């Protein structure tokens, strides 16, 4: 091998290890790693806030933090977890790393835009941290007007700017993915040969591109209204507070699909690989992903059942919400069917994937409960809702995210982690999660409202159980941080394809070279060409 050729084969991690080479990189894989690091930091910040919340709620009296601090804590928790963790997590890390590999391209279509996205994310993060240092914000992550525009005495504008900026990072990522998936697929890679992960990110990108601008403009209006005391949301100024809720949820409901669709994509990859089966009903899976993305835009009003919108609007939104459940149910059914008669092995990533399916199912079923107009009138703004969305977002998305990290870690780093610890962490998280959040369904049913720092004494037992579960959950979340970092140094060499998985990303070295493939691969097979019934 000539010196020149050898240089080409150094991985994207080798060659140029200075800070500058990282901060100016245009390589999608390095940008993915940058995201991975910053997103992990934000998860920790959001996690500390969660810990404070659960600590306060151990006793029924408001004795650990003041009401005001409590409000700022759950606002911080919500803002960070939604905008700085869940929305970017899978697309910006795994998506960034894998989409070009999975479509057989050398990079994303617009590498500079990609780097700019990461910088925007970082700058938005700095605003948010700055907002916290300055004194925090108490509006909750939803910034409901007129509280946020007229009454809150906290740093609403700084928080809004942070979210606004990170929104643009999301939009740019979406544009990049859409163009890459459309225009840069390797020869032979037709749409219906794409891995589900790519489909999922494609649908997600469509939502990112179409929903995020609405949020950005809406938040701009909040800031303007707050700064200049004129505006269109505050009734005292002639405005319409329902308008805010419509615009906000027009973004924020689809946003939950930004969080969960990529997770579904990850789960499909993992389940197919570790049951050695092609995804059952591949086309239906692809159609469902797109259907969810489209229908997701029609159901925002289920967040507004008690807002004063018309009863008929409420009924329509309730109906549409049931309809979205159909494609979601198709997905669960097809994962189950893929597992059926597969030769299943329970490696760590698979445990996460199975955990995802289970928790997503509970989250989805309780979603139907809160989508029913009459039931939601009772359950709205109680801990039932908190439990529901944590099952979807934490149980679903975070589980899949961790599963994906474990599955592609050898690809990203070239190293294997300890399988045993991987499994231990997966089980801990699953157990800790259920102990934390299942009691919250009961609490909500019994009428415990969200966003209060004290509650009736009778509800203390369930709250103590929930906080105890949070301790286990925290332990589970911290473990991967330890053994994954450990693997970087001491892990055994992974080799190109440690799981014997199908998919283009496994056909190149681990970690991949700078431009991914020695030569552009030509695709001749359908996706998931695992042969069933034999290993």
């Amino acid at each position: 091998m000539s010196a020149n050729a050898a240089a080409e084969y150094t991985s994207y991690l080798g060659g140029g290890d200075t800070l500058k080479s990282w901060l100016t990189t245009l390589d999608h894989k390095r940008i993915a790693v940058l995201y991975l690091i910053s997103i992990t930091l934000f998860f920790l910040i959001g996690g500390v806030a969660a810990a404070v919340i659960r600590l306060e709620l151990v006793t029924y009296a408001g004795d650990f933090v003041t009401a005001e601090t409590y409000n700022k804590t759950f606002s911080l928790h919500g803002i960070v977890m939604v905008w700085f963790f869940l929305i970017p997590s899978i697309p910006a890390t795994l998506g960034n790393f894998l989409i070009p590999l999975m479509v057989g391209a050398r990079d994303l279509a617009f590498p500079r835009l990609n780097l700019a996205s990461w910088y925007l994310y970082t700058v938005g993060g700095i605003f948010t941290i700055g907002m916290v240092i300055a004194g925090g914000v108490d509006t909750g992550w939803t910034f409901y007007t007129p509280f946020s525009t007229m009454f809150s005495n906290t740093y609403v504008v700084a928080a809004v700017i942070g979210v606004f900026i990170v929104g643009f990072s999301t939009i740019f990522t979406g544009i990049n993915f859409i163009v890459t998936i459309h225009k840069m697929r390797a020869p032979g890679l037709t749409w219906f040969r794409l891995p589900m992960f790519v489909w999922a990110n494609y649908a997600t990108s469509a939502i990112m591109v179409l929903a995020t601008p609405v949020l950005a403009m809406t938040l701009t209006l909040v800031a303007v209204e707050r700064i200049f005391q004129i505006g269109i949301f505050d009734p005292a100024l002639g405005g319409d507070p329902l308008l805010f809720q419509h615009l906000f949820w027009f973004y924020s409901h689809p946003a939950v699909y930004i969080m969960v669709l990529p997770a579904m994509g990850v789960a499909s990859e993992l389940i197919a690989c570790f049951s050695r089966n092609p995804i059952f009903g591949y086309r239906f899976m692809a159609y469902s992903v797109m259907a969810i993305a489209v229908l997701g835009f029609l159901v925002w009003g289920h967040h507004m059942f008690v807002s004063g919108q018309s009863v008929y609007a409420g009924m329509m939104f309730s109906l549409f919400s049931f309809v979205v459940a159909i494609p979601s149910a198709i997905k669960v059914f097809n994962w189950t069917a893929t597992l059926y008669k597969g030769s299943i092995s329970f490696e760590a990533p698979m445990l996460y994937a199975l955990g995802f399916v289970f928790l997503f199912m509970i989250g989805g079923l309780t979603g139907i409960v809160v989508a029913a107009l009459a039931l939601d009138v009772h359950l709205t703004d109680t801990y039932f809702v908190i439990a529901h969305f944590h099952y979807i977002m934490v149980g679903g998305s975070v589980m899949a995210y961790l599963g994906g990290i474990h599955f592609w870690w050898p690809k990203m780093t070239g190293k294997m982690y300890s399988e045993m610890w991987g499994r231990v962490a997966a089980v801990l998280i699953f157990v800790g999660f259920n102990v934390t959040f299942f009691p919250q369904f009961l609490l909500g049913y019994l009428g415990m409202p969200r966003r209060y720092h004290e509650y009736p004494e009778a509800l203390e037992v369930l709250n103590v159980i929930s906080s105890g579960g949070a301790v286990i959950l925290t332990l589970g979340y911290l473990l991967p941080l330890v053994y994954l970092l450990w693997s970087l140094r001491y892990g055994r060499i992974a080799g190109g394809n440690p799981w014997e998985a199908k998919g283009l990303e496994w056909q190149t070295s681990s970690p991949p070279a700078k431009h991914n493939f020695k030569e552009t691969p030509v695709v001749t097979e359908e996706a998931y060409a695992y042969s069933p019934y034999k290993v």
Partner: protein
Amino acid sequence: MSDKHTAVAEQFDDPEQEYHAATLGMWVFLATEVLFFGVLFASYAVSRFNYPEAFAEASRHTDIVLGTISTGVLLTSGFTMALAVRSAKLGRDKAIIGFLVLTILLAIAFLFIEGTEYYQAYGEQLIPAFNFMYEGAHEKPVELFFFLYFLMTGMHAVHVTIGILIMAAIAIMAGRRRFTSYYYTPVELTGLYWAFVDIVWIFLYPLFYLVART
């Protein structure tokens, strides 16, 4: 051809792929822009639905003559922009520059007229949060109207200004002979962007100047 656009960016296989990617990227970007403005249009719709008379009354304070002239100026600039793209297709560098400069001048004229209108509004004390003073029953809704007026035309003006900067950059590139009749993607994309700016205005014009006349 060699010093012209032969260096395809590393991630692409060929210039054709690059062209298609860039064009799709621009369309998707414009889709986000539509939704960005969409919020303002929705806000306008709701506010006007709530206060139809006040909005009609307020719109009598905008200058229909200047508004119509500026609309004409902007639409003309759309035409000269189209000619610039056509010149690029034909590979005529000088003509590209000429039409771009013309478009820029028209855009500046548009901004100038709009500035005049803003100045008039200032004189009539119609700028919300700054010097708004309005006697009459509909004070708050009229303020709302002008809030939307300044926000929406202001956002549009920002887009016009960005367009001017882009066109200037493209003109310089044309001066350096970056384009050929095979490669003129940036000119074409600028044309798309400018068409978008035009279209937004076509919606703004009736909403702010013609309300009282409908």
